[in-house]
């Protein structure tokens, strides 16, 4: 067997079986390198296990309280700075936007006024166009349907309305609702 196997046994944290332990002891008697490793591991384990905890200088908690107070102050300052910075940037952005909108008025007010006037005229023309279209459509439909048909349609519509009103009253009457 090679050293690797015995090294694994030496470094193992679990308890070795009797056979493994015997095998390891036999090997350690003949192998100097593994014996050295075994001794070194024991020494290192002892060194670490026997070493006590190192404590901080007295007054650690007071220093921590001071550090916490300083940290809270610093975080508050950072928050105030961040909010102020974001506010200023937003205001600057708004002013910039406003500037871009207002700037043409200052550069050439007449052309801006003309553009606005043109916009209003365009809106009026659009509305007029829609009205013309609707009136043409209405006239066309009116000329296609004869007057007798109009009368019949009107009566039919009125009849439907009456049926709807009666039906609505029947459905929403208190007696019917109580059932």
């Amino acid at each position: 067997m090679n050293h690797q196997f015995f090294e694994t046994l030496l470094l193992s944290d679990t308890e070795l079986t009797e056979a493994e332990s015997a095998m390891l002891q036999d090997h350690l008697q003949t192998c100097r390198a593994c014996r050295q490793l075994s001794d070194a591991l024991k020494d290192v384990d002892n060194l670490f296990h026997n070493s006590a905890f190192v404590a901080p200088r007295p007054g650690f908690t007071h220093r921590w309280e001071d550090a916490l107070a300083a940290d809270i102050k610093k975080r508050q300052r950072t928050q105030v700075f961040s909010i102020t910075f974001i506010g200023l940037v937003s205001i600057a952005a708004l002013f910039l936007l406003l500037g871009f909108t207002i700037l043409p008025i200052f550069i050439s007010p007449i052309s801006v006024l003309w553009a606005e006037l043109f916009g209003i005229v365009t809106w009026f023309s659009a509305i007029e166009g829609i009205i013309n279209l609707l009136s043409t459509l209405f006239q066309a439909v009116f000329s296609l349907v004869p007057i007798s048909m109009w009368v019949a349609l009107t009566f039919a519509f009125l009849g439907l309305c009456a049926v709807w009103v009666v039906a609505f009253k029947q459905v929403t009457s208190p007696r019917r609702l109580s059932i």
Partner: protein
Amino acid sequence: MQDTEAVWLVQAQRGDQQAFTNIVEAYQKPVFNLCYRMLNNAEDAEDAAQETFLRAYRSIKQYDHNRQFSTWLLSIAAHYCIDQIRKNRMNIISLEDQPNQEIPDTLPGPESSLSKREEQNRMRLLLEKLNPIDRAAVVMYYWYDYSYDEIAQSLSLSESAIKSRLHRARKEMARLWISQQNKLIPAERKCHESPVF
């Protein structure tokens, strides 16, 4: 202690600063020790321990009561120290080149003796050869008697990864110990040898 600690934790999670101060008082030693063993420097360890408690205070509301508090706290300390070591490595200054750091003299009598200092120095040399994560695992293994599972939880690694890291680290330290012994023996021989030979 466990009940009192649980009460402090609940109060601290509700924003009670005094309750958290009690926690700092109770855990300052284990946290400082971990930082000291990781960073090999009392000043850095003090800063790291303070920062650990500040971070713990900031995220105390996220602490899960099903988890052991000490594991959670030492996990914060270990991760912070690992980051610090990695940052310091950027400076490429070996700790061996630095003057020997004195351990805070908190232990009276024999602990302050020369042999103890020598032991601490040898321990420091062994630890500094390990990579930061292995170092943290070794410190938790020897000083805190943590199980593999607890170390794995603290370092956000799997249990098998911790086992193999500890196996490798202990072997590395044993080999280093042997080489230290070999260096010491010829030096001792030289002292006792006659100049004639």
